[in-house]
């Protein structure tokens, strides 16, 4: 059951007014940004040697770590010729005073599912080439998102971390025993995980009459709603999620799309710097 969350207390109404006031002047509450520019973003890969792929993303003060683990398992019955991709997010309590220990809540589940769909629908991971024995044994790819510090806009940071960790990942060596059992040797990393697209998400918040990209925690808290747009490297829209208790007009949605499209290259650049395009 989904329940209206606790809203920040009265003080934030004043803060909200301040946030809207600076937005009305084309500025942001941090005194640095304009409404169309994401915060500083840093992508680092290979931070966890034991994982087949990993990344740490800092987007302003928001920190998200992603780890990719690869196992051997059985395919889903309706896709016997495809590997399995699973995205999971943990809002661990060290990241925010609002997070409590426990199984993922609706926010963590929504985040993981939006990232999952943005990767899956466009075929970012080439699942067809992750088959070991059709219908029987395939590679199972786990993407685990670990929110370490929550200063707003977990969607964009998590999508970046997931994508960077996937780009960093290598498949482990495996052997087929005489019994037919597949044994993997994680100490030997071979081919990179086969990827076909690079995907980023860009979040635009609606705050009163204003739109602003990459909201920080305070902006997010006073926002009416957010739109998360996912793009591939060719500019196609590969996922959308409206999130938050408010609503938007069609005109606002169109403007938000424009803002998101124009901000996407900032994330793609951070990604390409951390994991250069092959041949680049």
């Amino acid at each position, binding site marked *: 059951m989904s*329940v209206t969350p606790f809203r920040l207390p009265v003080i934030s109404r004043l803060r909200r007014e301040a946030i809207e006031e600076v937005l009305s002047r084309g500025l942001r509450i941090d005194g640095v940004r304009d409404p169309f520019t994401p915060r500083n973003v840093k992508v680092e890969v290979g931070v966890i040697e034991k994982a087949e792929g990993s990344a740490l993303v800092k987007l302003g003060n928001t920190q998200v770590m992603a780890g990719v683990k690869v196992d051997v398992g059985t395919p889903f019955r309706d896709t016997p010729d495809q590997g399995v991709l699973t995205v999971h997010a943990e809002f661990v309590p060290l990241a925010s005073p609002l997070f409590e220990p426990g199984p993922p809540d609706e926010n963590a589940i929504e985040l*993981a599912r939006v990232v999952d769909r943005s990767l899956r629908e466009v075929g970012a991971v080439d*699942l067809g080439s992750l088959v070991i024995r059709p219908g029987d044994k395939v590679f199972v790819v786990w993407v685990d998102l670990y929110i370490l510090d929550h200063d707003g806009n977990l969607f964009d940071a998590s999508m970046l971390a997931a994508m960077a960790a996937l780009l960093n990942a290598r498949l482990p060596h495996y052997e087929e025993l005489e019994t037919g059992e597949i044994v993997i040797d994680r100490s030997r990393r071979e081919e990179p995980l086969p990827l076909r697209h690079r995907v980023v998400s860009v979040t635009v918040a609606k705050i009163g009459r204003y739109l602003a990209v990459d909201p920080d925690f305070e902006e997010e808290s006073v926002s009416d709603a957010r739109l998360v747009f996912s793009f591939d490297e060719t500019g196609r829209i590969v996922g959308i999620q409206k999130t938050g*208790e408010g609503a938007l007009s069609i005109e606002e949605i169109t403007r938000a799309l424009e803002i998101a499209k124009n901000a996407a290259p900032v994330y793609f650049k951070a990604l390409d710097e951390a994991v250069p395009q092959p041949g680049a």
Partner: protein
Amino acid sequence: MKAEGVRLITEEGLRHDGRRPEDLRPIKMQVGVLSNADGSAIVEYGKTKVIAAVYGPREPPQKFMLLPDRAVLRVRYHMAPFSTSDRKNPAPSRREIELSKVIREALEPVLLLEYFPRTAIDVFIEVLQADGGTRTTGVTAASLALADAGIPMKALVAGVAVGKVNGVLVLDIDEVEDSMGEADMPVAGAPDLGLITLLQLNGVLSEDEFKRALDMAWRAIERIVEMEKEVLRGKYGLAPAQEQGGVEG
């Protein structure tokens, strides 16, 4: 990633069930279908059948979740085990948890929750048969049940999904089109407020396709909200929409 080899649009431009791209499925609506609930409605989009019930404003068992300045809205989207081809495990899936949130956020913008501080308004949505578009059918059923319960609303909402099948944008996709198509974009909105309250895209669209799909959804939502109004006018009787059934939707 959707299979792209299957033909779901005929050479005449018709869909597998004979509809044109911009056609809704037959829509049926009925309100006041339950005796205990404060408000209720059953809505069908083709074979998709969803029942919604509203309780409240009331005091929930766990008081810690109450808010001092408004009612909390509690929404549960849930599928009956027999609603799907393979039996659905009755424990809430991750999908159901996400959709409960998305639907709650699709309803909040039209409710005057500040009228009822320190109470809860509960919306329970049960999918009885799933044939595509269950979340958007659920929003429509919830809108009717809220109105039936007399909860003050700024406007009615309705939902519909637009899909892309064999490169064609099609309205109100069913399960076959959803599973075979290239994109599924559920939308809900309140035409009387000019606001979109739910928007998701699962799949791939160009910017232009997205804008056309959004427009297509919006016009359908306007029609569905009109049906809601008709049904509420004839409360507890069969609405014209139901009697006509059919393609007109």
